[in-house]
């Protein structure tokens, strides 16, 4: 039926190749255009070839403080990655048995993936605004000096921003854990238990090494989704913008290839992270021989 000799096969291959071109083609055009000379514009033809726009980007150029936005994004991405891995692996273990509220938690997870991001962003912003008002009210009524003198807002990258991003990355983590444990062979674990291993030891020596490749997958989702996250964090980052937020601002103001240079740099970062993760994944798979 699905033989490789009939026409349908070649049509499918052609269609797939077109799709891949559609996926990657535009990104490669901007990578190409970011290596233009100083006279380059936003479209073809290429005006010379140089690394001028990257140097411009490095100097800070006409653009806002990209360097610190970049640093902020990386740090937040790493924090989100670690929390996503730890929390979703723990929750995944819990979900292997029914527990009180497990159904509600499951539906919350799915709901969090499909709730419109702007609604969530608004909700978190409202919550932190109320927290601010409450803090100021307590500060003035109890006469707490540091609140009255220096408290501005609780909204920020590591409070509301972090939380809003977790509502996006954690569901992916948990769903990956579900997929892992649905295909998980429990006999190894039972053998360990029969031989007298404690639950912690069983987890550390048996379960963890078996699920390690999938944990790399969760880490990849955690970092990259946070690093590029825009919609949910748009209202709750406080004063320090992350890179995607700066980028969105730049789309309306910048008319030079510097924005392509920035695009090339962040795409390069993403590709590097993906390559490292895939390599690490393959390494762990091979090591365990599974």
């Amino acid at each position: 039926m699905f033989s490789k000799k009939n026409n349908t096969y070649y049509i499918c291959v052609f269609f797939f190749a077109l799709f891949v071109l559609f996926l990657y083609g535009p990104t490669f055009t901007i990578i190409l255009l970011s290596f233009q000379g100083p006279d380059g514009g936003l479209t073809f033809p290429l005006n010379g070839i140089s690394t001028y726009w990257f140097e411009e980007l490095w100097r800070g150029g006409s653009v806002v403080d990209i360097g610190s936005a970049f640093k902020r994004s990386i740090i937040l991405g790493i924090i989100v990655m670690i929390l996503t891995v730890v929390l979703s692996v723990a929750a995944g273990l819990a979900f292997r048995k029914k527990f009180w509220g497990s159904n509600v938690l499951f539906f919350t997870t799915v709901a969090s993936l499909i709730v419109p991001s702007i609604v969530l962003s608004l909700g978190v912003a409202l919550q932190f605004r109320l927290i601010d008002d409450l803090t100021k009210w307590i500060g003035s009524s109890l006469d707490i000096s540091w609140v009255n003198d220096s408290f501005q807002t609780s909204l920020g990258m590591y409070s509301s921003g972090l939380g809003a991003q977790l509502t996006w990355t954690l569901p992916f983590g948990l769903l990956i854990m579900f997929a892992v444990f649905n295909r998980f062979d429990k006999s190894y674990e039972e053998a360990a238990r029969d031989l007298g291993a404690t639950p912690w030891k069983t987890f550390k020596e048996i379960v963890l090494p078996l699920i390690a490749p999938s944990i790399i997958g969760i880490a990849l989702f955690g970092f990259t989704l946070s690093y590029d996250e825009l919609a949910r964090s748009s209202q709750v980052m406080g004063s320090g913008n992350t890179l995607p937020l700066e980028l969105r601002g730049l789309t309306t103001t910048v008319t030079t290839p510097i924005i392509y240079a920035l695009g090339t740099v962040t795409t390069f970062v993403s590709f590097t992270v993906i390559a490292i993760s895939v390599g690490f994944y393959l390494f762990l798979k091979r090591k365990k021989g599974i």
Partner: protein
Amino acid sequence: MLPYIINKSIFNMPNLFKIKPSVGLLSLPYSLVFIFFFFIPLVLTFVISFWDYNEYSIIPDLILENYRYIFENCFSFENDMCVTFKTYLSTFMFCLITWFFTLIIGFFVAYFLAFYVNSLTWQIALFLLCTIPFWTSNVIRMISWIPLLGRNGLVNDFFLSTGLTSTPQEWLLYSGFSVVLAFVHLYTLFMIVPIFNSMMRIDKSIIEAAYDSGANGFQILWNIIIPLCKPGIVIGSIFVITVVMGDFITIGIMGGQQIPSIGKIIYVEMSYLQLPAAAANAVILLFLTLLIIWIMTKMIDIRKEL
């Protein structure tokens, strides 16, 4: 019976003295994140949508003014359609068109991967090839259409040089067309993954049986593969439709900030600190989104599909 129970409880005695923490507790940190950053914010949004506000602050109250304002002039038939209805209509159109294209493309990409690629290694490699862009920046992927679709872009160059058109086409970029294109570009993956997952579960012997009984390729596709992929199609559709429903970034950037959307109304109201008004819009958007999902999930049980 009684001796059995006694016997059993004696053997279980040691367990009674051991306090065994439930494994379910491991989900506590995860749950706390969702209580604090998902559940409470949504409840607050609902509550605050009934509050009053002025230029500087939001005032606890119980009024319907925010909702009344949204539907102002919507139910009188003498005027044109009100802004709210127009915006929702335009958003629904984007949903429908995007849904159609992502479904067609996503289905056939998944079909190719699941049935025509035989080795597991190649399957994973090609699947990864489709997934990688999902892990890169959406904004970059949007602006990467500028060199292709812009006034002096490659597509217009092609049109002009072949004489297909005599002037540069303006509808290519910052238009409804480019918005849909970007949606399809960004979100087809949401269709591919669940449909591919459904297809991989299809027992190949069913297809062979049909083939041996004389069914042609189209009959197999229509009568076996598509019905068995229904759960995947529904899950993918939910993702695509909800992400388009609440979008304000893609429509903003690719529509040249000219095309309205509900997400954008909320965004603008927030920037003017009209928070209760934004909350009322958010409640309506959320309600409609949930309604659509509810209708779609009537068709399947999501939990079985993971």
